[in-house]
């Protein structure tokens, strides 16, 4: 039933299409803003022959929160939810639904394509930032390993968030707004709620994968629960992604997509 080269066909087509989209170019630019800010700050400091800003501190307090608490979520939302809603808006879903390809292959091919583009955008910004902020000593084993872990954590985060927002896109009407409410509403509030609430946010597990812990504000009852281990976090994130993806395929199969507004 699952046909690998058909999934590859979908993957290649949509990666090429996405790389040309205006949206992608905008987010690549957006991903290098922290780097530009860092260079600008140190540039001006040089003018005033002030002592330069420490790269590692900027990365830890500025770069990490930017990427792992804002950027990845936003881009995964705008791309993940769009996997299906773009096709419905432009009514092109009809071409896929009337081709000899299973709904599973369509979604896996498309999600993989959107994931890859999101990862490329993220990787450009994050790796450039990491390299410049840890320039002297970048070639040490420690830094290279940290960089690798940074990209790996980003990839897993993108997979998890994109599958969640794919599920939103497949089942809900106003998926983008609900996604925004989830990111900036629930995930931020959950940080300060008692332990169990944090367990049902993706960020909680993500925080154990990143090479540098993202500083967490103390909870109201300031009992900070223990972060899960690397392996445990990885497995739970992958498990969540698989569940979200399976649910999306199930709904996609069952739902009738009325592309026209009249009979």
């Amino acid at each position, binding site marked *: 039933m699952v046909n690998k080269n058909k999934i590859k066909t979908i993957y290649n087509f949509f990666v090429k299409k996405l790389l*040309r989209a205006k949206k992608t170019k905008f987010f690549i630019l957006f991903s290098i803003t922290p780097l530009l800010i860092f260079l600008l700050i140190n540039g001006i400091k040089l003018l005033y022959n002030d002592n330069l800003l420490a790269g590692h501190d900027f990365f830890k307090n500025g770069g990490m929160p930017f990427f792992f608490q804002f950027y990845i979520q936003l881009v995964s939302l705008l791309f993940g939810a769009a996997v299906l809603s773009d096709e419905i808006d*432009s009514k*092109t879903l009809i071409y896929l639904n009337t081709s000899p*390809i299973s709904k599973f292959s369509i979604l896996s091919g498309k999600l993989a394509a959107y994931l890859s583009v999101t990862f490329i955008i993220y990787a450009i910004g994050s790796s450039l930032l990491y390299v410049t902020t840890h320039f002297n000593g970048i070639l040490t084993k420690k830094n290279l390993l940290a960089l690798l872990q940074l990209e790996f954590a980003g990839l897993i985060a993108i997979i998890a968030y994109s599958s969640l927002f794919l599920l939103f896109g497949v089942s809900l009407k106003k998926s983008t707004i609900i996604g925004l409410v989830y990111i900036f509403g629930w995930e931020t509030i959950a940080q300060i709620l008692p332990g169990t609430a944090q367990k049902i946010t993706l960020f909680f597990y993500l925080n154990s994968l990143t090479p540098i812990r993202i500083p967490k504000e103390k909870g109201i009852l300031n009992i900070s629960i223990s972060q899960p281990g690397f392996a445990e976090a990885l497995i739970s994130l992958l498990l969540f992604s698989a569940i979200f993806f399976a649910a999306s395929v199930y709904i996609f199969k069952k739902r*009738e997509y009325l592309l*026209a507004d009249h*009979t």
Partner: protein
Amino acid sequence: MGVVIKGENLSKWYGNVLGLSEISVEISGGIQGLLGPNGAGKSTFLKILTGQLKPNIGEITIFGEPVFNNHEIFHRIGYCPEFDAYYREVTGWEFIRFKSALFGYNKKETDDRALKALDKVGLTDSKERKISEYSLGMRQRLKFASSIINDSDLLILDEPLRGVDPLWRIKIIKMLKEFEAEGRTIIVSSHILAEIEAMTNNVILIHQGKIFAHGDIQEIRDLIGSHPHRISVVCDDTRGLAKKMISDDLLRNIQFMDSEQKVIFETDKRDRFFDTLTATISGSGISVSEITSPDDNLQSVFDYLIGR
């Protein structure tokens, strides 16, 4: 070729909109014209036929197989959708090649079939241009090309010629007839009745969610008892001809249009009328220059049945 499409009392409604009510239909080979006013259930029927919608009651099978959620069936079906839908930032070639690859051919066959489809609709030389730069007619032809890639046994076309210029209309109609000759089944939905008449004699008329008529246009026309057949004759002695024809109980009505030297007869017994007419003309010295049946076409069938 057995029955290709079989529908048993299909009913479909969503919200308070009634799409179809108890449609049973069997379609086998050849070109079938599908027509009906907007909002009368024609698009709902096509959506059920292509598995986009599931009927609330009844079920439909193509080549004996169920349609909804059975994607393998599309190896044997080619579908041209109604909307002007196209992928942004993509060229004609990339789209056709993508659609062709979805059938799972090897690389060479995918390219050959895509090229052949593009060539058939005359888009080969503009295949590198972005679809957004195509005119409406060219996008329509591209859509049609995407439905003939797999040389399928069943072709379902939803208004395939909308916005296409007369030159390509004729070429595509000719192409469809060639497909019919190869024994393929083709469902063509269209609002332009002259187009359907140019392709086929078989029509399915859907109105108010029901099949009002299905079969040969001529037979349907004969079944419409409420409107007798109108035959118009242009000759040099209309009154003389009428006098000779009136003796029999054949005629319901005669109408003279002297300005055009035309007389219009209305009759229920069409064949007997023509026998008598031919005999009368050859028997008398009246020189006849024209015999036509003004309401023996799809437009009249449509008007009489739909009653617009």
